[in-house]
């Protein structure tokens, strides 16, 4: 482009620039229009637990396939707490309709919801998930008791009747039947709902079984404080919090084959060739043993619906009914095939009726 050549495109350039200014104006105008159009959302919005995410994805996909008149719901993840927080932001098309949670909604969250105007919440329990303990596929298998985990991970344990800083360095120190591996436990981080279950069903149970709880109470702590102290995890690097998802835990095990990871049952079922599962209290985890209650470490999975959105967001009630239907959440459905532990028949029927009648919490 010479100086003389520069003259030729200049007309074009001006036109182009003028046109793009015009387009920008149009775009901004359409923004304003969109603001008003946003009131009419025709797609269900779901957010919450990453444990529930795969199930919600399967249902969303099948829902879109089955109902020609509704669009497939949009599912976000991000954790139970984050999902419920979004859920409690208020009522209206710009807020989400359904929150997935791998734990029950807390009192404080219900309160926060009510303050923002989300008063009628329908709670739906759709199944159970087991929490499994697994090591690398090539490693030895373990037979854990909750006590072992407590003794391995607690910051303080009782030795000779006295509370001392946890002296255990290897799994062999914890239980003579275990190999002399350096303790390296990859446990879910505190933002995960799984962590709460792990604390309650494994650490606290182990605390009681090992007699530490008793020693704490005898040492002058009240019951509540002792319970809280039981759920603490040592901070010297032997217990590693995983804030990502199970694929990260799997990668950690691959790099440290003497580590032990905590996984969801469904993740394990999809990676049986890479992981060796440990038994807990003598029971091997499976859909059957979790369903029967034999396997001790499991938790219910929920989703929460805003009643105010039913009838406003098209397909919301149908989605909820479809989710808990026998076809989806039943024993032969795709959710069970993925690793969900279905509700027992009578409980499932109760839930289906509750969804049908739009029974809200606290009614």
């Amino acid at each position, binding site marked *: 482009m010479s100086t003389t050549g520069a003259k030729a495109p200049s007309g074009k350039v001006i036109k182009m620039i003028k046109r793009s200014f015009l387009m920008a104006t149009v775009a901004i105008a359409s923004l304003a229009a*969109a603001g008003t159009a946003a009131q009419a959302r025709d797609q269900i919005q779901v957010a919450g637990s990453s444990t529930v995410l795969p199930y*919600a994805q399967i249902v969303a996909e099948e829902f879109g396939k089955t109902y020609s008149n509704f669009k*497939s719901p949009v599912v976000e993840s991000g954790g139970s707490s984050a999902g419920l927080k979004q859920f409690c932001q208020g009522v209206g098309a710009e807020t989400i309709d359904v929150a997935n949670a791998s734990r029950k909604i807390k009192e404080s969250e219900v309160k926060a919801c009510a303050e923002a105007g989300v008063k009628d919440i329908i709670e739906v329990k759709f199944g159970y998930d087991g929490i499994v303990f697994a090591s690398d596929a090539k490693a030895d298998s373990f037979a854990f008791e909750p006590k072992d985990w407590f003794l391995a991970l607690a910051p303080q344990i009782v030795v000779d009747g006295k509370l001392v800083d946890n002296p255990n360095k290897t799994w062999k120190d914890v239980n003579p039947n275990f190999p002399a591996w350096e303790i390296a436990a990859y446990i879910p981080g505190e933002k995960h709902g799984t962590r709460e279950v792990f604390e309650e069903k494994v650490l606290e149970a182990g605390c009681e079984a090992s007699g530490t709880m008793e020693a704490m109470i005898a040492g002058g702590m009240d019951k509540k404080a002792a319970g809280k102290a039981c759920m603490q995890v040592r901070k010297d690097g032997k217990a590693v919090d995983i804030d990502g998802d199970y694929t990260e835990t799997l990668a950690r095990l691959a790099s440290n084959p003497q580590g032990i990871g905590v996984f969801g049952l469904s993740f394990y079922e999809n990676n049986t060739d890479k992981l060796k599962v440990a038994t807990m209290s003598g029971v091997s985890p499976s859909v059957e043993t979790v369903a029967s209650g034999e396997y001790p470490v499991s938790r219910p999975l929920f989703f929460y619906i805003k009643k105010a959105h039913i009838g406003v967001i098209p397909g919301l009630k149908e989605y909820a009914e479809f989710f808990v239907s026998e076809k989806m959440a039943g024993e032969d459905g795709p959710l069970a095939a993925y690793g969900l532990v279905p509700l027992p028949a009578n409980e499932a029927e109760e839930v289906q009726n509750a969804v049908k009648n739009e029974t809200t919490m606290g009614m």
Partner: protein
Amino acid sequence: MADITADPARTRARAWNSDEARARTRKRYAAERRFRMYGIAALCFATAFLVILFTTIIGTGWTAFLQSKFLLNVTFAEDVIAPDGKRDEQTLRLANWDKIARTALYQVIGANEADRKERKDANELLSRGIDVQLRDMVLASPDLIGQTKPVWLLAQGNVDALLKGAIDRDIPEDRRQLNNRQLAWVDAAVDKGILAKKFNTGLFTFGASSQPETAGLLVAIVGSFFMMLTVALLAVPIGVAAAIYLEEFAPKNRWTDLIEVNINNLAAVPSIVFGLLGLAVFISFMGLPRSASLVGGLVLTLMTLPTVIIASRAALTAVPPSIREGALGVGASKMQAVFHHVLPLALPGIMTGTILGLVQALGETAPLLMIGLVAFVVDVPSTPLEPATALPVQIYMWASSAERGFVERTAGATIVLLGFLFIMNALAVFLRRRFERRW
């Protein structure tokens, strides 16, 4: 000075051909050689990592472009699809498509239909997405009903993983995703030629899915396209206009200095902050829909604007003042001088900067997290107001999925994203080479 020259030893040392001087020269040359070696070592180090990155990604990802499919003689039996003779969309939608595909499968692999366990094993060989595949065929041409036609149907993700070697055959049956019977069926089908790997068009035509074999990038590609369009339509005019004003018209005073510093600061703000801003302004205040690619585009526009302004200003500064003065000298107004002479000459630089800004925006995930674009979206959006995802987001979501098939798809999607980035960077280089002027 005098006593320096008086010192005979020093005089010798300063002579150019003395031993000391030669030693110093050698030392200087050695230092230069060492510096060059450091440079080469640094380059090799960077290249080695690039090579490792590309080989791992392409090594794991190339199989994502192939997909295992069964060739089945499917009979579109009228009594299964539309028993009451009705052929409206709802009937066809709810028809038992799985059954006609499965019947065809039982025949070729010789499965005993009466045995419930065996039937279940056989069903697990076919993808859950085949019903959509068959339904769309019939919806497109209803004449198929009553005919028999060979169709390539998607195999289930584990079958695909087995054919690609991602599932170990030698581990015990109870820990393998496919049991011995299924393994035998798969091997027989491969021998017969009715199970083969075909080019995976689905990777580009499907939306999100919970199963790897029916998961594709279309929603992400469309979403990224809408976002890039929004960014190009908003960031370019606004950014270029701001740059022209600041560079050519604005008085140089404290205020413009302050603005300049702030633009530079804005370019360094972590991208997640723009996401928070987008959530507060566009979704909560303006009421735009969550998960919409328009909102993503707006947030990315905010993020790209400083880059565009800085690049445009640099390009405008690079145009020599003589051009402006010449134009003004022959009687052009300031605006004419800028738009007729300076801007056309600065345009290649502006475009290069803009494209690099777009490339940066295309690879961004963090700001999209807050505004709901990290989501599972099945339906392909037709407007920027409908829910969508973006390419890097899809990579992130696939990376955290449990199924084996998503591992290769994560790498496959990375290849696609890298492809787009490569094309855009090449375009920037081309524009620079083709139109750039040096003075």
